[in-house]
């Protein structure tokens, strides 16, 4: 009976984190972007500095009409948002906040996160194809091309960290981390950050949704709650990738008073990375499609391979 209770409690905590953290990142984006651009951002909803803006947005999305285009492939169209959203929920379950604070301690959790987030792209492809709209299809094809190219440097960068730690488990990697990694794994960290932003299709890698050219890519035909699910998937993706970066490259819970405040360190480091990802959106113009592919294959893949070789040599020499 206690087992059932524990599993329920863990699942509910993951669900709560999944619903709260993306909203926090979204609100941070509203405010950080606004202040970087000399604006105030939302100020009215909820009273204090517009803290309830995203709650109000959510209420608005729920009230909107849920439209399926007449020419669309009905079942695939309606199912696509779930396929985009659920992988990030599952991935969040294995990311440790501290050695004890993890919902599901899988032995190969680093690989698990990569495998589940790779499934999310299917949601975008399904949405783009099933919408029966040429902008949607173009957007879906752009995101497929982009995500396939950036998956490789992402996996290679994570492989390098796993090699350095001698473990496939996120907990084991954070445990093995030392400040020396900040220099040793720096190229891999940069590759990971760039590839993660590209995987999330965030600016400057937002070619697939480029609203000025192809309206909103695969999400053009979506309204109401289903559209909100795609947005939620994007922000949940930021949370997953930021926490993953914090655990892989910044030592997760390592820091002063890590015995008591370890979870806070992980969250803080993740938040810093999330703000960097938001900052990139404000600072950089959108990359063109050919520039995107160039960056992935000419810069990131060789860099990730070099990092992997460097890690391998060092691990063998120092062993």
């Amino acid at each position, binding site marked *: 009976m206690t087992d059932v209770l524990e599993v329920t409690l863990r699942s509910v905590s993951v669900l709560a984190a999944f619903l709260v953290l993306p909203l926090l990142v979204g609100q941070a984006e509203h405010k950080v972007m606004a202040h970087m651009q000399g604006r105030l951002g939302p100020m009215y909803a909820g009273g204090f500095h517009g803290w309830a803006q995203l709650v109000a947005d959510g209420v608005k999305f729920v009230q909107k009409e849920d439209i399926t285009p007449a*020419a*669309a*492939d009905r079942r*695939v169209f309606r199912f696509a948002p779930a396929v985009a959203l659920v992988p990030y929920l599952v991935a969040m379950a294995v990311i440790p906040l501290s050695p004890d604070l993890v919902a599901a301690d*899988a*032995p*190969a959790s680093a*690989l*698990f996160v*990569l*495998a*589940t987030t*790779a*499934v999310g*792209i*299917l949601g975008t*492809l*399904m949405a*783009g*194809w*099933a919408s*029966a709209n*040429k902008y949607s*299809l*173009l957007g*879906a*094809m752009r995101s*497929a*091309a982009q*995500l*396939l190219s950036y*998956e490789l440097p992402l*996996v290679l960068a994570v492989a390098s960290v796993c090699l350095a730690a001698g473990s*496939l488990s996120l907990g084991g990697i954070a445990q093995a981390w030392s400040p020396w990694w900040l220099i040793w794994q720096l190229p891999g960290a940069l590759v990971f950050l760039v590839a993660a932003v590209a995987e999330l299709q965030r600016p400057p890698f937002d070619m697939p949704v480029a609203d000025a050219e192809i309206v909103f890519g695969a999400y053009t035909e979506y309204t109401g709650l289903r559209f909100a699910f795609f947005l939620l998937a994007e922000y949940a993706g930021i949370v997953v990738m930021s926490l993953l970066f914090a655990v892989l490259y910044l030592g997760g819970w390592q820091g002063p008073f890590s015995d008591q405040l370890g979870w806070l360190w992980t969250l803080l480091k993740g938040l810093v990375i999330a703000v960097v990802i938001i900052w990139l959106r404000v600072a950089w113009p959108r990359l063109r499609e050919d520039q995107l592919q160039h960056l992935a294959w000419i810069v990131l893949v060789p860099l990730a391979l070099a990092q992997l070789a460097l890690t391998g040599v060092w691990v063998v020499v120092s062993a």
Partner: protein
Amino acid sequence: MTTLDIAFAGVGLVAAASGLLAVTTRHVVHAALWLVVCLGSVAGCYLVLGAELVALVQLLVYVGAVVVLVLFALMLTRAPIGPNPEVTTSRAHRALAAVLGAGVTALLLSVLLPVAGPARKRPGTSNTAVAEQVFGTWVWPFEALSLLLLVALVAAFAISRMTRAAEVAQSALPEMTAPERISQ
């Protein structure tokens, strides 16, 4: 019957059903999507049997990359919404495929059924053990396979370059893009 038995039967059933749907549906993209379900539930089978690493690699490589590539290629060329009569095969072909499938199933059953005894144990294969096998005992076959894939990749690239050069020389007619074809 343990919980694992029931879970294995469940994912096995889903894998078989989705596999059947993937080959019988008349919608090309639906076939690819059913293939996703099928490969995903095969990964589930591995997981239930205690091969965690194999299950995750199956998910990462097949669902995350191979099927996405298949879907991408379908959308790039021709993937109308609704049934596609062009890809439907003749009755003779279907009968032949069914016979062939049944034959393979019978062959596998004749090999596997004698092995299946009443005693079952699920040794949880550790990731280290898999790594030692792949990069120790089986390292040469593994490397030979990767070389074979690389050669196939380079050859495919060369062939595609050759035909494209020939096409360009043959005609300067503008090609239709995928969305135009779909709208027709």
